[in-house]
């Protein structure tokens, strides 16, 4: 029959088109992740090792990014700090995304009262000021890694829930989901088989954004002294510890801030590179 051979050009191509900026972002983020993984091998000095008599030392051959307020090597500190900043944020993002996506998809697939109650409670949660909530939590429970990750996850779950739910509601109205419903499939099967696999792209984009927010939140907490506790130090704590160096223009305070900026901007560029390319010029092209 005539329909037997689909014209090849009508096939969907999954090849990813990255813009230049997106490519740049991906390289930056990839670089930071490698750094975090390989920190002990890359760093010349230990995390808590005082290696120089000069505090707030300038950039030099021995200390490429200078020394900090105790005379430690800033480059090594940043390399180690990447592990905390990226690792914690990644864990918190994954947790928030997991909760948000599961609940959001469940809400969309169940509909009715369940959806209503869940959406309302998430709305309540989202109206709490994030940083304030975090301060209260840390004050009450102490600044341990699980508390930090859990708090950040709680703060960003409602956002992930909203996005996941709205994407899932759209998919839920598609005919293949109706077919599954008419077949008699249970809600969880519909969720896992039909809805979730089609949410990957929009949800990944959201994942990236949420990661950026969490990096900034955790950095703010550290800057306030309520984040990761010494001697471990993430980039936020490095900025705080070296804040006196600002007067001398010490790289010790500037460089961790630059690190935070490159990571968050890199993630942003990467997301835009992936997501922005998917619009079609003619919405009803056949």
């Amino acid at each position, binding site marked *: *029959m*005539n*329909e*037997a*051979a*689909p*014209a*090849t*050009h*009508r*096939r*969907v*191509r999954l090849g990813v*088109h990255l813009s230049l900026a997106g490519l740049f972002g991906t390289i930056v983020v990839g670089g930071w992740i490698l750094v975090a993984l390989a920190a002990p091998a890359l760093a010349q000095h230990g995390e808590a090792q005082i290696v120089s008599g000069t505090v707030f030392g300038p950039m030099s051959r021995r200390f490429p990014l200078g020394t900090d307020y105790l005379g430690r090597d800033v480059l090594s500190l940043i390399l180690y700090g990447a592990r905390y900043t990226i690792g914690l944020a990644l864990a918190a993002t994954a947790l928030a995304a997991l909760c948000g996506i599961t609940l959001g998809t469940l809400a969309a697939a169940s509909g009715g009262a369940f959806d209503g109650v869940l959406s309302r409670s998430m709305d309540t949660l989202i109206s709490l000021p994030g940083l304030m909530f975090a301060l209260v939590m840390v004050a009450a429970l102490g600044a341990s890694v699980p508390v930090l990750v859990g708090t950040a996850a709680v703060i960003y779950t409602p956002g992930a829930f909203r996005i996941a739910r709205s994407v899932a509601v759209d998919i839920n109205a*598609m*005919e*293949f989901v*109706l*077919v*599954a*419903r*008419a*077949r*008699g*499939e249970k809600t969880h099967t519909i969720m896992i*088989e*039909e809805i979730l*696999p*089609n949410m*990957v792209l929009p949800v990944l984009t959201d994942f990236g954004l949420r990661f950026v927010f969490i990096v900034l939140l955790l950095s703010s907490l550290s800057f306030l002294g309520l984040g990761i506790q010494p001697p471990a130090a993430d980039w936020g704590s490095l900025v705080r510890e070296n804040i006196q160096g600002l007067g001398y223009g010490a790289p010790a305070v500037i460089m961790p801030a630059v690190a935070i900026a490159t990571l968050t901007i890199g993630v942003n560029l990467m997301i835009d590179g992936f997501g922005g390319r998917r619009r079609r*010029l*003619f*919405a*009803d*092209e*056949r």
Partner: protein
Amino acid sequence: MNAEAAVQVADLRVTAPGLTGGQVMVVDAVSFAIGRGEVAALIGESGSGKTTIALSLMGYARGGCRISAATLRVGGTDVLGLSRRALARFRGRHVCYIAQSAAAAFNPARRIMAQVIEGALIHGLMKREAAEAKAITLFRALQLPEPERIGSRFPHQVSGGQLQRLLAAMALITDPELLILDEPTTALDVTTQIEVLRAFKRVVRERRVTALYVSHDLAVVAQIADHIIVLRNGRMQEEAATARLLAAPAHEYTASLLAAAEPALRAAPAQTARPLLEIAGIVAGYGRPGNSGLPPVPVLHGIDLAIRPGSAFGVVGESGCGKSTLARVVAGLLPPARGMIRLEGETLAGAAASRTREQLRRIQIVFQMPDTALNPARTVARIIARPLVFYHGLSGAAARQRSAELLELVHLPPSLVARYPGELSGGQKQRVNLARALAAEPSLVLCDEVTSALDTVVGAAILDLLTELREKLGLSYLFISHDLATVRALCDEVMVLYAGRSVERGSRDTLLRRPLHPYSDLLLSSVPELRPGWLETAPSAPAGIGRVVGMLDGCPFFPRCGARISDLCAQEKPPLRHLAKGAEIACHRTEEQLLSLQPDTGAAKLLPLATASTS
């Protein structure tokens, strides 16, 4: 080549990157010319390159595609020689494009007038007042209601047919050298299509617009085009003046297109057993039911029907009349507020969740849009395997073997199992869709517009498949379509639905015989015919959506009915009449009155088909 021509294309080629590297020819060596003020039509199935050619006239290539041509001139401009910026100025100024979905082309948040004149303002062609005055002239030429005021409405405040005409006004405001119409009426009901086509034709003739009309529907094209170019797989098959092409197609492919435009009747087995499915007094709608138990958006108002085993029951009506709602009710996706559904004497629960698995298995649903009916993230193998596991507990090798059998049943090669839906053509998707339904081994298949999104030829093949499956497997169908010709081609019995009420019900042959319910008559005579000049003689009734909100006392068709009896029809529920031809209609007019009122168009034209089927 004609030096006067507004559009000159010679040896146009468009290549796209192939899947395995290399290049694929999407359009191959296409040459044609369109004279000033002429309308040319590009006709072919989807995937034949129609839209690609149309877009290349604007210098636009879809992602990764490359255009080359010996000549590609529009109104004296060499399109391929334009720089990016010049191209941007050229589009919207010298070439305008009208797409199938007007709704997608309008911004819902802005008033219509602002959007219509935007092109003229952007290109600095005229002042706002002049542009608005011109827009109003165009609205009038396009026979839009209230031309002075319609511009101040928002897009959602006008009907689909009106929006399509407003899109034409938007395109014509800059007096482009070429107007491209890409399937502009495909998404419309037949009754609306007539109005839109008339308006297009008039404005094109009056203003001597050069136009390229892209469509898969020969009958529509026959009404408006001066000459027709037939395409297949990116190559030109034939080009000829409209009348000649229709009367004497030179190419056999054109002949097959002509044949598919008038679907042949599929034989129906005679059955007299007790009904497989019976529904009675169904009232259904959307929204949370109120105190009375009735939904706030009522759609169906008391529907009765019975489907005998092995037969096909057709439901026709305009968009929004409640056809899909009916299918959803039967499938258990939308529990009805009133009424009962019985499958082989067993009463079914309203909600799918409360039905037994065996009951669910016996009714399967196949949807309209092949694109959204299959999960894009799952392979064909997995899509078909799911009902096999769910209903029959088949897995592993047994499931694979059964899948292969099912694919064979719907005439698909077994190699397709590894593909994703995005890698299939529309017709193939619809076959996979059917295979999934058949995997359950149902007795009743609900077909909701299964051929509407397909081209005529592909759609005809699906109809053949349905007929074949019915004979082989003894299936019954509830076949829903807005296209009377399709319903008649397949179904033994037909119900005409208007505003959620059945206005006529009878065997398919009764639809050929007068008198008809006035609405059936309008529907029938609105189906475009394959002869130039049909448009001028076609009926004109005020278009309207076939949906009336809320319950009403009189006849729902009253506002549009040519045969209405003023007060009676508006105030009293029309009685059911049994006509001599064997059908049942709901109308105040008596059989004799209707007979004398109905002109010879409409039903009469379908008679040759009937004789063809009996011979």
